């Protein structure tokens, strides 16, 4: 099929919307909306997978589209909304960098992502190879979301959106991973959210808040305290 066929255009539209959504997440401070954005991201992934399945006729892509619908559009957002209601965390505090600053960082990240994806895209034989750059950009933008947020809840949304980016990357580079791996990854994500649910209640019980600055006392020397972002995420970004 030619590169300009209608379904491919739709696929590229999905990819572009995914990138836009990542920026929307970067700017959004209301946690409920953040979860809704995550659900829309899942829905877009579902549509993209379905289109790709229809285009290539690969059976396992239909399966993984179904898995995406069940897990990322219905189950995870529902679990997160329930958690938000029961923990009553609706707003994130002021992010560490103001919105326009974050957006600028995001733009640079996208340029970097396309640079990183170029050698991969050049070797890919899939019709969707132009979307690989977008997938890498979504992954890196989710990193930025996680780094700039204070609330545990928004960091988790960033984490899940990163997983979505990885899923999209696998799809556009190789039409998805082998089925057994995809099931395993989906299971891990589901368990991760359940574990986090339990974990949040424990944090809540202990601190009466889900703000992560409570979780910064374990430093090398007890005297050294400042209101820095949780370090682990930051150090990861260097790579």
């Amino acid at each position, binding site marked *: 099929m030619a590169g300009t066929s209608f379904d491919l255009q739709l696929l590229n539209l999905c990819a572009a919307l995914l990138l836009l959504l990542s920026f929307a997440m970067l700017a959004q401070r209301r946690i409920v909306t953040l979860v809704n954005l995550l659900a829309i991201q899942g829905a877009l992934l579902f549509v993209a997978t379905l289109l790709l399945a229809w285009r290539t006729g690969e059976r396992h892509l239909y399966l993984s589209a179904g898995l995406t619908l069940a897990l990322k559009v219905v189950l995870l957002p529902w679990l997160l909304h329930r958690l938000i209601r029961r923990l009553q965390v609706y707003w994130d505090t002021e992010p560490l960098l103001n919105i326009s600053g974050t957006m600028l960082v995001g733009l640079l990240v996208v340029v970097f992502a396309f640079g990183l994806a170029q*050698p*991969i895209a050049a*070797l*890919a*034989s899939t019709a969707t190879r132009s979307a690989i750059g977008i997938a890498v950009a979504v*992954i890196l933008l989710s*990193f930025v979301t*996680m780094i700039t947020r204070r609330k*545990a809840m928004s*960091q988790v949304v960033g*984490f899940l959106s*990163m*997983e979505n980016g*990885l899923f999209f*990357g*696998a799809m556009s*580079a*190789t*039409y998805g*991973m*082998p*089925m*057994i*791996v995809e099931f*395993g*990854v989906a*299971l*891990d994500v589901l*368990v*991760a959210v359940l*574990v*986090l649910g*339990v*974990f949040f209640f*424990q*944090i809540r*019980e*202990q*601190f009466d808040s889900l703000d*992560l600055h*409570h*979780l*910064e*006392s*374990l430093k*090398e*020397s007890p005297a050294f305290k400042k209101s820095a972002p*949780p*370090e*682990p*995420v930051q*150090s*990861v970004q*260097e*790579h």
Partner: protein
Amino acid sequence: MAFLLLLGTPLCGALLLGFYGARRWAADLNVGVSLVTFVAACALTAQVVSEGPLLVGHEQFFIDPFNVFLVTLTAFVGLTTSIFSRPYMRVEMTHDRVAAPRLRLYHSMYQLFMTTMLVALTTNNMGLLWVSMEAATLSTVLLVTLYRTPASLEAGWKYFILCGVGIAQALFGTILLYFAAEKVLGAEGGTALLWTHLNAVKGHLEPTVLGLAFVFLFVGYGTKVGLAPLHNWLPDAHAEGPTPISAVLSGLLLNVAIYAVVRCKVLVEGSLHSQLPSRMLMAFGLLSVVLAAFLLWRQRDIKRLFAYSSIEHMGIITFAFGMGGPVANFAALLHMTVHSLTKSAIFFTVGHAAQKAGSQLMEDIRGLITLSPTIGWGLMMGSLAILGMPPFGVFASEFLILTTAMREQPWATPILLAALGVAFAAIFGRVQPMVFGETTARRLPHPPALLPVFAHLAIVLMLGLYVPPYLADWYRAAARLMGGQ
């Protein structure tokens, strides 16, 4: 058969203990399950030794000399830790640090953690390897936060987020690996992620993509190894969780993560024909050794002290694997074995010492030798062993690594030696007053289980003096495998 038993036993044990984990006999059941797992591992080893490498379950699992020795080691330390945890958790209950219902979570997750590690070690599928590594993190997050103290919650959150993000990079690396492999092996039949197939065609895999994949895989699994600068989660998770969990995290999980890195390195090196993977391993290994050696000086908490010592030893092992070659690989495998045995033995004694003193701060722990000679001597011997004193096994492996470094990478030898010296002074200076100082602490309500400590140290001592021929052959076969032959 032995293989099914090996993976099935801990899984069934996890389910059973999920229901009955709070009963009085749950700890005994835990020991029993671990014992059956260990017996299965031994049977499997015997089978592999006599019949050669094994492929099971539509090639999804395979057992070769490299992973079978890690499987046995994992099952063995899993068994001894469950023996140690029996009186330890009872004392914790008497001290009101955990309630009985929470032990259900503890026992069930302990077995689940063993299952995930055994799956990670035996799987042939690089994707499943990722899945089980992530599952290993998830099953231990709630164990780290078992005491629900603010510090343990913080440690658990750090552990989850840092390892989660790190391992997400490994997933990206796995995707890239699949991307390169699919071109050679094809997407049909799902063989493109099977390590044995990848290993057979590694010379034909696209080098640019594999180089990129290795960077992500190394950073991802390296986070779990605890390599600097991604080590932040490790001391917290080790210090704040219950001591049996510190012992298995340090003694086993780190080994499994290194195993994953080495598996990836073998593939990538075969494709790249360059020094990139080796250099990365050496650089990060050396950085971890040096950083950990100096951070040891700043520790006040005994479990954090030995957690940093784990980072140091993981650095040494990574450096040795980076040098490559039959001798260095042999030494690294030996070091993995003795470190895992010694470090878990140290955590066993440290756990009881901290229970006696009622604190993990080193200034509060004094005079172990008068209180309980066995704990005191256990800690002293363990520390001497981990610091690389002859005649313990750590000395033998470190000696081999250093002499190889002198020949292959002479520039690194003084750095390694200096770091080992700094670490020696830091640890020995702290342990000495803890063992020999004055004390007023009281007796524990349950007698500690010190059999595992001395069993581990005896094996380490034996490995220092004499490596049995079949074990040496086994290491050599594994080292050859890593050389890519």
